[in-house]
């Protein structure tokens, strides 16, 4: 009897195994629950603008007057988010365009031209740039970039240009470090073969290494854009927050995020003013989903075998 019991009892290792498994599943389950609750909250709140307050979703996406807390001229609240959507995309694309050449240059230097020195100095600089909190970037923008733009172009200095310049510095490290990773991932034999065939170093970089790393670099750019799109504080401090359709780069404008941060404390839960802000948050959420999908698609299509 004794022996049978002993033989049939699960060993200590088995119990350990079960315990470990249990704890892991519990943690994963908790995270999944958390994420789905956040998604549910934003989506239900964001949609209530259209379901409870009967705002036309088309008006929301195409009209230009934003004043959800008060009644407009036609007797309906004005909930047109187009200026914010356009401005958000504007600063995102502009800052990515501006940062990409610099990021690629840094990447090439660090992975091909001078990996040793690059790692020593540039790596430290890039990591430092990542570590600076966004409010500091915003403050620097407000005290340095805004006055410079004011002197150069007149007006107040607040606007898309200032926001772009601040975001340029903020997304540069993201794009650069991911670019370095993707350049490092290019197999050594490709560049060796190219050099052996008599190509110069520049030809090798341009025609072989960059080509092979294209999908990785694109992913890096998209990640940088996602960061720019979601940045709130720094942008809010330098863009001026005027819910106007952007006509040029040096007049005040407003992004989805800056409207959220400035508006949320002054509205009451459950009113249209508050729900409309949740709708802006929903747009942000959907956009980050789109960015993620694009990254996945690039990853699938362009991986080097």
């Amino acid at each position, binding site marked *: 009897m004794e022996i049978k019991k002993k033989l049939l009892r699960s060993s200590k290792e088995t119990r350990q195994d079960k*315990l470990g498994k249990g704890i892991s599943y519990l943690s994963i389950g908790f995270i999944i629950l958390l994420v789905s609750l956040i998604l549910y909250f934003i989506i239900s709140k964001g949609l209530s603008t259209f379901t409870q307050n009967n705002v036309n979703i088309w008006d929301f996406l195409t009209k230009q007057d934003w004043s959800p807390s008060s009644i407009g001229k036609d007797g309906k609240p004005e909930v047109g988010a187009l200026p914010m959507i356009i401005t958000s995309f504007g600063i995102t694309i502009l800052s990515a365009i501006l940062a990409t050449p610099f990021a690629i240059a840094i990447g090439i230097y660090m992975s091909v031209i001078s990996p040793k020195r690059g790692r020593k100095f540039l790596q430290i600089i890039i990591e430092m740039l990542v570590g600076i909190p966004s409010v500091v970037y915003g403050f620097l923008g*407000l005290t340095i970039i805004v006055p410079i733009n004011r002197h150069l172009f007149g007006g*107040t200095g607040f606007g898309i240009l200032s926001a772009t310049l601040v975001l340029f510095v903020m997304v540069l490290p993201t794009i650069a470090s991911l670019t370095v990773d993707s350049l490092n991932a290019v197999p050594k034999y490709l560049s060796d073969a190219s050099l052996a065939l008599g190509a110069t170093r520049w030809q090798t970089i341009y025609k072989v290494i960059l080509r092979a790393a294209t999908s990785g670099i694109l992913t890096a750019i998209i990640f940088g854009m996602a960061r720019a799109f979601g940045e709130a504080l720094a942008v*809010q401090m330098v863009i001026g927050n*005027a819910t106007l359709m952007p006509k040029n780069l040096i007049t005040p404008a407003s992004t989805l995020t800056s409207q959220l941060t400035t508006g949320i404390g002054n509205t*009451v839960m459950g009113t249209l003013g508050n729900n409309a802000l949740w709708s802006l948050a929903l747009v942000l959420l959907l956009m980050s989903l789109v960015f993620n999908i694009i990254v996945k698609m690039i990853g699938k299509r362009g991986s080097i075998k």
Partner: protein
Amino acid sequence: MLNAKKFISIISIMIISGLALTACGSNSSKSKITAVGSTALQPLVEEAANEYQQNTDNVSINVQGGGSGTGLSQLQSKAVTIGNSDVFADNQNGIDAKKMIDHKVAVVGMAPVVNKAVGVKNLSMKQLSDIFTGKVTNWKQVGGKNQQIEVINRVKGSGTRKTFEADVLKGKDAIKSQEQDSNGTVKKIVSSTPGSISYLAFSFIDDNTLQPISIDNVKPNDKNVEDNSWKIWSYEHMYTNKNIDKSTKTFIDYINSKEVQNNLVKKLGYISIHNMKVTKDANNQIVK
């Protein structure tokens, strides 16, 4: 083996300390007051709470910002004891003011401010309103330099903006322009941007970096607010629910006491509620 033991011990320590913390939170016999809302009123309530807690043992007061809207909606959902607000609850969308008691604890005066280089020190109420509604766009139209006017507004729904619009624009819509979300940022921008105009609470106009504007030759100061010859001012409210408990009542009475009103309120740049010779109601009507 060792790892598993370590693992289990860490987990159990976490659980035990978690239990201990919750126990600490719940066993205190102190009555708790949470005041949330207006950032303009926050410094006064914070300082008053500090002084109050030094003299009374059995109460703990927690003061937070978040904005007037947040304060009132948190109070409405009974999540906090006091909702601080710059505006009458009657004027806040989605709030049922009838279910709350309004405690006015201070008065804040606000004045238009312009960049020093503009060269304007006085405007009529009509001119001021024309500037903010976009009818007047150049300083030379109101006696200043030939320079474009840059309007810097506060965020829609902020208490300061609501007061300014009620007292100056009287129902007209402000032009769409730059919006900033705090007195501090506005001050910084107006003092450095040529041609800019905005408005600030009196307590922020304490130095020489910008030019306060007189309206119809009335200077913006506390005395003129007290008899309403300066028109742009508002109350700071501390709203509570109808069934207010004793410790909350005592705390609000303390803020309204002579001791606080004559010292702390003045020191922080507000105007004492006791000095007011007129009252204003939620519809912006003045009663002498």
